[in-house]
């Protein structure tokens, strides 16, 4: 690993992590502690309509949420915009104009004035779900990271002009990473001649994923890159760029992988099997990208939170200190994984671009 995150950087993060997660929250108190923790973890992994820092239950059973509401944007025969505080964390019905909406298991459904959720035999909600373009916790985090990145790298770009080609401040930390991405990822995989046009994407995707992963390790603990829609969006961008910039050789490689090494009549039987596999490969590549990132980040969050949850299950100093030690160790590993996943996503994207940009070299 070229970039090493120092341990003393990880320690405060790991420590800050805990108090917020200890505030175990459950909107429907059901069953024992284990199910409660499990529900809490899965609730955390999902996207949310408000940016809650933590929540707690009062002695009288009321739930108190500390955080800020975010705008909910729905398309339901016209644009409906309202604050997520109206949803009352699924405990009430939001009235917007003449429509009523209710939050059920992290999704907004259209209901009647009483907020009745109808379930079918398979326990699936039969209520109408409006098209949802809400600025959720994940969207908010992405916007935050986008602004941060823009601020950071725009300043780095400007510092070159001021300082005669030498970066200052935090730019000294990021510039080697940028150069590393160019020299170790883009150039060897795409090739000296064509790498330039892919650099913007590779740099953006690397820092975007890395920063979002790191944001997930802060006490805010937003699980953005561990969300299938986000990784799908990232992977589909790679997919589109790969296939839009694909050269003649790239397509020839897919539809005529054997080339002139065989006569057409002997190739045709092989191709009945080979071509579908190659075509499938086009889709499997970005699919593996999206699943890898999603599963790694999801798994990281689950592991850390489960270990923290162990503290409440053991309820003894041995178990709690053991759980603390384990959480600490895993949190440090997660810092590495945060970087590694961003690196692998960028690396494999570059590799796929390299396939697409290839020009008659090797098969």
């Amino acid at each position, binding site marked *: 690993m070229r970039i090493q995150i120092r341990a003393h950087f990880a320690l405060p993060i790991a420590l800050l992590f805990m108090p917020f997660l200890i505030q175990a929250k459950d909107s429907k108190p059901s069953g024992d502690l284990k199910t409660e923790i499990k529900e809490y973890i899965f609730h955390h992994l999902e*996207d949310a309509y408000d940016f809650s820092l933590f929540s707690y239950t009062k002695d009288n059973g009321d739930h108190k949420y500390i955080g800020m509401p975010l705008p909910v944007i729905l398309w339901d025969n016209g644009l409906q915009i309202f604050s997520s505080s109206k949803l009352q964390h699924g405990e009430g019905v939001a009235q917007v104009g003449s429509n009523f909406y209710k939050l059920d298991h992290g999704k907004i459904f259209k209901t009647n004035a009483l907020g009745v959720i109808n379930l079918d035999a398979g326990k699936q909600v039969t209520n109408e779900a409006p*098209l949802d373009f809400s600025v959720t916790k994940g969207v908010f985090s992405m916007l935050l990271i986008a602004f941060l990145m*823009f601020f950071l790298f725009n300043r780095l770009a400007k510092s070159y002009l001021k300082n005669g080609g030498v970066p200052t401040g935090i730019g000294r930390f990021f510039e080697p990473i940028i150069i590393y991405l*160019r020299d170790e990822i883009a150039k060897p995989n795409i090739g000296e001649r064509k790498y330039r046009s892919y650099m913007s994407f590779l740099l953006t995707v690397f820092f975007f994923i890395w920063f979002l992963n790191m944001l997930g390790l802060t006490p805010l603990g937003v699980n953005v890159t561990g*969300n*299938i829609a986000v990784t799908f*969006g990232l992977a589909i961008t790679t997919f589109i760029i790969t296939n839009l910039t694909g050269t003649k050789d790239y397509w020839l490689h897919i539809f005529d992988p054997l080339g002139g090494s065989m006569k057409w009549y002997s190739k045709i039987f092989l191709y009945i099997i080979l071509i579908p596999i190659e075509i499938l490969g086009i889709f499997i590549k970005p699919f593996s990208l999206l699943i890898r990132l999603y599963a790694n980040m999801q798994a990281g969050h689950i592991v850390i939170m489960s270990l923290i949850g162990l503290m409440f299950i053991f309820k003894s100093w041995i178990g709690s200190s053991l759980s603390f030690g384990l959480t600490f160790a895993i949190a440090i590993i997660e810092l590495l994984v945060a970087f590694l996943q961003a690196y692998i996503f960028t690396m494999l994207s570059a590799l796929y671009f390299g396939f697409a940009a290839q020009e008659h070299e090797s098969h």
Partner: protein
Amino acid sequence: MEKLISEFSLGLFFWQTLIFVGLIFLLKKYAWKPILSAVNEREASIKDALEAAKEARSEMESLQSDNQRILKEARAQKEALLKEARTIRSEMINTAKVEAQSEANKILSQAQEAIQNEKRTAVNELKDHVSSIALDIATKVLQNELESKDKQMQLVSKLLQNSDMK
């Protein structure tokens, strides 16, 4: 798999794509292009500087070798000059010697000639002197001899006797 599909949120996907693609284009314009061009520029300038240094070094080396060569040439030239001077000197000495010799010879021969001439004139003068003296003496002798008639007669008779009148 069903869980994944049910988890998929279209809204989040929409926003993600929007933010991400927007970010790519924004950063491309305001960050990556200036950063990469600055880095490239710096690298190029470093490369140029290194090359210039290398060039300067090789130039210096060639200069040094030039110096060496020039020094060597100068030394050789000096050597040659010295040698030439030496030969010229010895030549000069030689010619001077030869000239002096010939001059001396000439002077000697002139002197000898002059001596010879003087000698000749001296001998001639001496001859003249001697002859005049001899003539004087002879005259005096003759005068003495022919003072008396007898003696004259005697002589004539003697001469006549010797001449044999026939």
